[in-house]
Structures are given as C-alpha cells and as structure tokens.
C-alpha cells in the first residue's frame, strides 16, 4: 500500500492508546491534587512523562514516514484539513473567554450597577444598591482587595512588537524553505523561537509585577479572572507554539522538508500566526480598551 499513488493507511497504532493513558493519568492526578490527595502530584508527573514520550514517539514516526515519501498529496491534504479544523476549534475555545469578557464588561456589570433590565438588575436592587458599574472592577464584594489594572503601553506593547516581528521571521523562514535556502530557513526559525520565548519571559515578568506590586491576581474579581484567564491561556499557547517551532528547527537542521513537501512546517506556522492574531485581540480588548 505504501506507494506514491495510494493513500497511506497505517495498520497498527500504539501511540494513541499510550497517549490517552498518559493524559488520563495526568488529569486524574490533577483532580486528586485539587482534592488535596497526596498521590496527585506523582500521578501528574507520571502522566505528563508518558504524554511527552508519546508526543516524541508519534512525531518521530510521522516525520520518518514523511521523509521516506510515504505520504502523497492526498494524505497531505488530509493533514492540512486536520490542522485547519483543529485551529478552528482553538478559535472557538478562545471565543468563550473573549465572550466572557464582553458579557461581563458590557452587560452583567452594568446590571449589577443598576443599569438596564438584565438578570443582575434585582441583585443590585436587593443586595448591593450602592454598587456602581465601572471597569475594571472586582465586583460589589471587592473580591481580592484593592488592585491596579494592567496598562497597555509597557510590557504588553513590547510584547506586541515581539510577536508581530516573530510572525515576520516565521514567514521569512518559509520563503527560505521554498527557495531552498537552508540558512535562511534555520535563521528565520531561530529568530522566531527566540522571540517566542522572549515573549513568555516578559509575560512572566508582567505577572510577577501584577502579583507582587499591583495587587492584581487571579482572585481580583472579574477583572483579575478575565485578565489572567485570557492572557494565561494565550501564554500557554505561545509556549506550545514555540516548542513546536523548536522541533521544526531541529528537523530543519537535520535536512528535513522540501519545497513541495513540508506539512509540519506549514502547520507550525499556521499555529504561530493563529497565536499571533489572538494576541492582537488581547492587546486591543484586554489591555487597550
């Protein structure tokens, strides 16, 4: 079956079950940890280790198959569709948190403040008649105590520039790949990965500032909740994207990818641009507005 013109169908797959077992162990461990059970952390580490081994094994397998020419164009199309729809599902995941920000900021906080006729209106009248709707807020209960909101023009602005330029270097690397200029490919990827990790470091610094100097935490009412949830999930995606790109960089060193066959590179680049666009949304709706 494994010829150029037939659709490649693997016949046995061991990594999926192993990965599932790892993920399940990790999540069950996390749940135990949250419940205060002492075996939680051990299970988490064990599960995570299995999961990482699975990722390494599965991707090595795929890369080997791809390099030995087992995938024809049609297989490539399936992979691309898979990646596209995966990114779409990620968009929907972020949409939940953007939606939450919109709803609380523009609707429910107003109702709590006595404006309009939404479901929170009676809560205002009965429980907190003195509460006035403003943003940012930690609610009528002043949950989490005094805090200072995060400004846009310091670290976040620098991070915007960093991510935007990383998008450029990523595209530059792609051009290198297409032009069979291996040096440009490698340099472009190195710059992208470097900028990615720089972004993560700066964000860690920003979080540190928030927690130690500004009183802004995950527990700072709805502002803290939406702020850290949105930026946190995004930061996590930047980490994942940078790790993926590091793998691509490693494969580029080893001489993988051809101008006509480099699905893994494309997938990583799409993912990176997606993370980039989400950040622009964050910068506008979380920091600037």
């Amino acid at each position, binding site marked *: *079956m494994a010829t150029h013109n037939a659709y490649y169908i693997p016949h046995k797959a061991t990594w999926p079950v192993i990965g599932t077992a790892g993920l399940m162990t990790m999540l069950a461990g996390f749940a135990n940890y949250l419940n205060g059970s002492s075996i939680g952390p051990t299970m988490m580490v064990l599960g995570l280790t299995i999961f990482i081994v699975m990722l390494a094994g599965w991707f090595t397998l795929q890369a080997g198959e791809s390099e030995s020419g087992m995938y024809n164009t049609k297989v490539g199309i399936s992979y691309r569709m898979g990646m596209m*729809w995966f990114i779409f599902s990620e968009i929907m995941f972020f949409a939940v948190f953007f939606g939450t920000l919109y709803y609380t900021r523009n609707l429910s906080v107003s109702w709590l403040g006595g404006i309009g006729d939404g479901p929170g209106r009676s809560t205002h009248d009965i429980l907190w008649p003195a509460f006035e709707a403003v943003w940012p807020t930690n*609610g009528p209960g002043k949950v989490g105590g005094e805090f200072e909101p995060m400004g846009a023009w310091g670290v976040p602005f620098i991070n915007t520039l960093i991510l935007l330029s990383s998008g450029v270097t990523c595209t530059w690397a792609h051009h290198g790949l297409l032009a069979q200029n291996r040096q440009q490919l490698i340099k472009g990827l190195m710059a992208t990965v470097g900028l990615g990790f720089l972004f993560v470091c700066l964000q860690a610094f920003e979080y540190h500032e928030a927690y130690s100097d500004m009183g802004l935490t995950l527990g700072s009412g709805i502002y803290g909740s939406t702020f850290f*949830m949105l930026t946190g999930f995004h930061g996590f995606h930047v980490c994942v994207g940078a790790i993926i790109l590091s793998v691509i960089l490693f494969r580029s060193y080893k001489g993988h990818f051809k101008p006509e066959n480099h699905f893994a590179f494309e997938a990583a680049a799409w993912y990176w641009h997606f993370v980039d666009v989400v950040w622009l949304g964050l910068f506008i709706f979380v920091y600037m507005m």
Partner: protein
Amino acid sequence: MSAVVAEHEHDHEHDHHDHGPAKGILRWIITTNHKDIGTLYLLFALVMFFVGGAMAMVIRAELFEPGMQFVEPQFFNSMTTMHALVMVFGAVMPAFVGLANWMIPMMIGAPDMALPRMNNMSFWMLVAGVLLLASTLFMEGGAPASGWTLYPPLVLQTGKALPFAVFSVHLLGVSSIMGAINIIATIFNMRAPGMTLMKMPLFVWTWLITGFLLVAIMPVFAGAVTMLLTDRFFDTSFFDAAGGGDPVLYQHIFWFFGHPEVYVMILPTFGVASTIIPVFARKPLFGYSSMVYATAAIAFLSFIVWAHHMFTVGLPMAGELYFMYATMLIAIPTGVKVFNWTATMWKGSMTFETPMLFSIAFVVLFTMGGLTGLMMSVAPLDFQYHDTYFIVAHFHYTLVPASVFILMAAGYYWLPKWTGHMYDEKIGKLHFWLSAVSVNILFFPQHFLGLAGMPRRIPDYAVQFADWNMISSIGGFIFGASQLLFLYIVIHTIKGGTGEKVTDEVWEDAAKHGLEWTLPSPPPYHSFTTPPTIIPTEHI
C-alpha cells in the same frame, strides 16, 4: 487484497496478507481500521445504553409512588445527572460516530478514514472520559447531582467529584473534536471520483454538518467547565456576582454549546432516516437537495437560539422576543424534512421490515417532540412549562423514539451487511412493537404531569401526580426490558443469526441507493482499495 475474505469479529484464519488486523485482543486496542473502530464505538455505545438505562430504571422506580422509596435525594439527583451525561456522551453520540466510521468510507467509496491513527485515539479518549465520569459515582460527596447542565452555583457544591467531572468533559470534548475532524477530512478528501457533494447519501451530508457543529461547540463546553474549575479552586469570580461575575453567564455559554449539541444527536438521525425510508418505500428520496439545505439551515439556526432554555432567567425583554422568534424559525426546515419523508413514502410500494417500522415510528413520534418544542418556544407559555415534566417529555420524544429508534433501525438495517448474517425478523418486530407502545406509555403521561405543574429533577412529589407517574414508570419498565431483546438480537446475529446467507444487497434493490450494498456482506477489511466507478444516484 482479495475482496471476499471474511475477517469480521474474532475470525483470524485469513490473516495472511500484510495489512490484516493484529492478533487477539491487541487487534482492538491498536487498530486503525474504520470498521474495527466503528465496531468498538457501537459496542461501547450499546454497553453505555444499558448503563444509562439502569440509571433511568432507578429514577422511574423511585418515582413509581409518591414518598421516598429506594434512594436518597442526593443520589436520585446524581442519577438524573449521570443518566443524561451517560446517554448523551456515552451512548447516542458514540453510536453515531460508530455508524459514521463504519458507513462513511463505504458510502463514498474510500479505502478507510482519512486520519486512521487519530481515529483510534478519539475512541480511547472517549473511553478515558467515560471512565473518569463513572469514577465519580464512588467518590466522597457522590457523583455530580446538579443536572447534566452543571449550573453554578449548585454544581460548585459537588464533593470530590467536581474536578473529575470537569476533566471528563475535557476528554470527551477532545474525543469528539478528533472524531469530527476525521469525518470532515474524510468526506472532503476521500470521495471516489464522481461522488460529487450533491450525490452523497444524506447520512454523509448530515454527518459533515454535524462535524462542523462538533468542532465549533465542544471547545465552548470545555471553556465553560474550565471556568467552573477555576471558580471552585483558583479564586476566580466568573460566575459569582460578589466579584462582578454572573451565574447566568454560565447558562449562556452552556446553551451556546447545548442547543447545537442536541442537533448533534438529531442531524445524523435525520441522515439515517433519509437513507432507510427510500429503500423500503422503493422510491428515490423526495426532495434530496431541499434535505441538504434544510440540514444546513437547522445547523445554522442552532447557533442563534440558545437562550430559549433561559426564558425564565430574567432576560431583557428584547432578548426574550428575539430568542422566541428565532426558535420558531427552526420549525420551518424541520417541517421540510418531515414533509419530505412523508412524500417519499407517498405511493411507494412499501414493505415493513423492522428498520422501516422503526423509521416510520421515528417520523411520527419525532414530530410529536417537535410540536411540543414549538409550544415551548413561545416565551410566555414557557414560563409555565419550564423545569416541569413537560420539557422532560419534549426532549425524550426528540431523543428516544427519534435518535434511539433510528439507532435501532440502523442496527437492523446494516447488521446483515456488517456480519453477513440475517437477524431474526420475528423477534425484531416484537422488539419494535414493545418499544413503540411502551415508549408512549412512558413519556406521553409526562406531558400531563408537566402541564399540571410537576417539577423535573425531584425524588418525591405531591399525591395528585401519583397516577400518571405510576403509568409512566410501568411504561419505563416495559421499555427497559424490551431492549434486552435488542441485545439478544445483536449477539445472535453476530453469531450467525438465522443461518440464512445474505446477499450483497441484503434489501431489494438497495444497491441503487448506496455504494455500501455493492460490497460483499460482510465487506472486506479495507472497503474500496480501488475506487468504485459507478455511483448510485437513486437517492437524488
């Protein structure tokens, strides 16, 4: 490979070519074959159908008479919650994914699914998710008892089970997304030459659209439960008014997922019905393209009607009105479908084998559920119906004699193809009549109970509700017991059935309607190693 080698189930004798299945139990664990995975999904769903069914029996036993009989109220509420979650995520959805796995490659002339390794993973993720969910039954504080909607603040009072339930939803979501992506990629990329989109059987069409729904909504549910988790363990205030959040926000997010979710269960149902009815009416499907457009329209509308589940929560008036009218619109494409099925049967030379009986019952009884839906879509009327047994009756009519009946129909229709054996038609008919009568004894009285004001999700009730509850419970017990016949038939058919050798076509002239009937019964391990050249177009 030779096309007629029989190698279904536990038959390994012919495992001589290089890409047959692995030996023994390992075959099922590491398989990438669409038929093996389809079988796994279907058997898993069947088991879950009985697990969820057992929970329903607990519920109906407790409600048999007023007063507390068998279980604690907390456990009763865990039963309603787990029954729904198990049936939705463990039985109905996986059963349809199983059908998709088995049938889509065969219907579009493909050798297998587009992404076979991911296919394997999506099945095992499902098992992992259901295991986590089931484990909550044995935890301190019991399984979640908030109803399947998991509304805060109530759900935040769950004991140790809460994080397990949340992670179970995550795993089930990952499983569904992988399954859906695989189906979409298969349909777009793996069709045989000549199998244009508008020649695809409707089952394939409905699954394509269901795939879009799943990819769009499962992450939304995952996001909602993630916020439950952080509200409980990480001090966030998403659903807490004291911190500026809003518990109603959860309801919006949940139903943005939840309403399309009910269509995830009904669209493939429509697809199977549209596949079966023409074969037994011996006519092409009436209004093929209008069926496709109606499916797409329903899917689109399903994203913009979610707050009809929240009419009584205190939405602003503009919201009440908008969601009321938008919901009513769904009745139009749904009506188109019912009309088309009826018109397909009109003046057909019908025969009434078991799959057809279940399909006809589906058309009639699903319409019942649609009509009560229409009643509830009227916001002021819903103030009376909401959270009563009326809505329980509504959605059970749309799910049991619709989705579940059609799954049964699909079983009877394709089992001979899958196994090469014929099921016992007499017992099949008996199963049908017992189910069709008892399902109405079970659910019809619940309309009366709801209109009279009996709330849902309670273990005890006022005495004026006693009679109809007892009747409903009796119907429930008969319905539950009748399903054992189905279990028997499935096992019996796999083991050889009536002994009658079925033809490739199985049903008269079925090959005019679908490519799967041009393959041998049972079909070879890989469906179409070379693409078929003639595309049946009778269904168009």
